[in-house]
């Protein structure tokens, strides 16, 4: 059966102007293709919330010297990991002032600013950005081949031989196309955060930074017994404080998300950092947390899936990186789509340049290397027993209990392990998984 030829509105339609979508649009437009970039929010970034740090190294390829124009709050020069027991805290800090100078490493930024800035680069590259427009489904011809998308605008159908779904964690396009059958709640966490206002000099003093230097703190423990974690990031004159909570665990207990934040704010290690701060904005968003295990098929005839829509966010304890994975996968999708148009083959085979690139780069290599980590970090033992165990050991190592002599560390470890209810075999097994997982 032959189809009447469809009039195409563009070579490529990109759905969602988050970091994945904008990078897909930049890459495809630079390769000379016509691109429509559709965003449901009134402006790019208006629907997007995250913890707070972007690692834009991958932008070197698309936006050289990005640091000169990117809307940055602070450059991260200090990374901390905080292990919280009910009353104690173990902090591991790393500081590198070199990260505060070109070519930089990571920066705190507000997503409505950052995403808007990135989408502007897509427009400058020649893409047509259409905001305030929700894509409602895929258009197919009588053979089932994808022909574009329908939208909620009057006469809003848009036709193109390739659709790149960059529509984020709930990706209805990936679900509709059949690429992504699961919506198992245990693969997702809910992130809630408060943007807390404090004068700049107060933030500088409390966090030990100056000028536009910033701090990134990842927190393990402190989530009121709900598996998850917390974060604190410094912006110029606000602090972003939030928690990520494993959905089924959150739903199976009694404390609401804002109460869990309130308890974290009262923790003796956290309270002095944010005392007196006023809540400027409360926000929430879901994270695809399970990494490799939950990734959908990312290529079909006439369609590619990138960013959170493909579950490419890396959430592995000390790392919470999604924006860089979204930017990279979006860029590779845009390049592969442009190639497919050039060789006139938009079938999944013609588009396979996408997965080739993902396999060869950090996008899938990091996920493969760290495949066991998301589950380990969110496991009951790591979540509920290890913080108290580690804090207990360190407390006793540093406690001066004269006239008693110092106990041996081995004895402390044994006693605290038993007190925390951790079996020796489990500890060894988790240690082994952790070492291999992070290695």
């Amino acid at each position, binding site marked *: 059966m032959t189809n009447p030829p469809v009039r195409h509105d563009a070579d490529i339609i990109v759905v969602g102007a988050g970091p994945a979508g904008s990078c897909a649009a930049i890459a495809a437009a630079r390769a000379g293709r016509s691109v429509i970039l559709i965003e449901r929010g009134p402006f790019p970034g208006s*629907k*997007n919330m995250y913890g707070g740090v972007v690692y834009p190294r991958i932008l070197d390829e698309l936006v050289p010297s990005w640091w000169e124009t990117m809307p940055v709050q602070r450059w991260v020069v200090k990374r901390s990991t905080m292990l919280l027991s009910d009353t104690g805290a173990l902090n591991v800090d790393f500081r590198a002032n070199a990260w505060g100078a070109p070519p930089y490493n990571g920066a705190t930024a507000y997503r409505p600013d950052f995403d808007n800035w990135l989408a502007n680069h897509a427009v400058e590259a020649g893409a047509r950005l259409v905001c305030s427009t929700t894509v409602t489904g895929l258009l197919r011809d009588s053979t089932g081949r994808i022909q574009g998308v329908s939208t909620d605008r009057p006469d809003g159908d848009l036709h193109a031989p390739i659709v790149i779904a960059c529509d984020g*964690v709930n990706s209805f396009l990936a679900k509709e196309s059949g690429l992504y059958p699961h919506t198992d709640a245990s693969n997702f966490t809910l992130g809630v955060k408060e943007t807390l206002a404090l004068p700049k000099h107060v933030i500088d003093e409390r966090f030990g930074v100056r000028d536009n230097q910033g701090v990134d703190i990842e927190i393990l423990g402190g989530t009121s017994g709900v598996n998850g974690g917390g974060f604190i990031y410094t912006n110029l004159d606000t602090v972003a404080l939030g928690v990520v909570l494993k959905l089924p665990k959150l739903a199976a207990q009694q404390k609401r998300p804002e109460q869990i934040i*309130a308890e974290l704010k009262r923790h003796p290690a956290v*309270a002095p950092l944010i005392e007196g*701060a006023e809540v400027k*904005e409360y926000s929430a968003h879901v994270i695809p947390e399970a990494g490799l295990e939950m990734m959908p098929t990312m290529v079909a005839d006439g369609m590619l899936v990138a960013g959170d829509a493909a579950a490419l966010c890396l959430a592995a304890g000390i790392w919470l990186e999604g924006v860089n994975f979204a930017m990279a996968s979006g860029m590779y999708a845009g390049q592969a789509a442009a190639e497919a148009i050039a060789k006139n083959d938009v079938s999944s085979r013609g588009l396979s340049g996408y997965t080739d690139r993902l396999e060869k780069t950090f996008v899938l290599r990091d996920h493969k290397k760290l495949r066991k980590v998301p589950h380990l970090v969110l496991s009951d033992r790591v979540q509920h027993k290890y913080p108290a165990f580690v804090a207990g050991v360190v407390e006793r190592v540093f406690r001066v209990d004269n006239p008693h002599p110092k106990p041996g560390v081995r004895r402390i470890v044994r006693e605290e392990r038993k007190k925390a209810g951790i079996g020796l075999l489990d500890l060894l097994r988790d240690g082994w998984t952790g070492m291999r997982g992070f290695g």
Partner: protein
Amino acid sequence: MSPTARIERDSAWPEISFEERIGTAEFRIHEKAHITVNGDSCRGCTTRECVVACPANLFVPTSDGGILFNYENCFECGTCYLVCNKEGAISWTYPEGGYGIVFHRT
């Protein structure tokens, strides 16, 4: 920290009410609901995952065993349909383009 010190410190930021909290976010409300909840399904639901998990606190149990839902102050996060175990209880879409949550310093 002594208990009194702790109480003094707690009062350093009086916990805000939920109304004040949600009032810090901007919602451009469309007259048409983008999410609807089927009260009949909820009446038989004992687990009520949505009530504790919705970050916007939009699912309110009623005295007759149902659920009162208002779509207006919704973050469009997806938590409710992910945690609800009852097929058909929640029908979930995004609001019309340009409407709904608008973040600023997130």
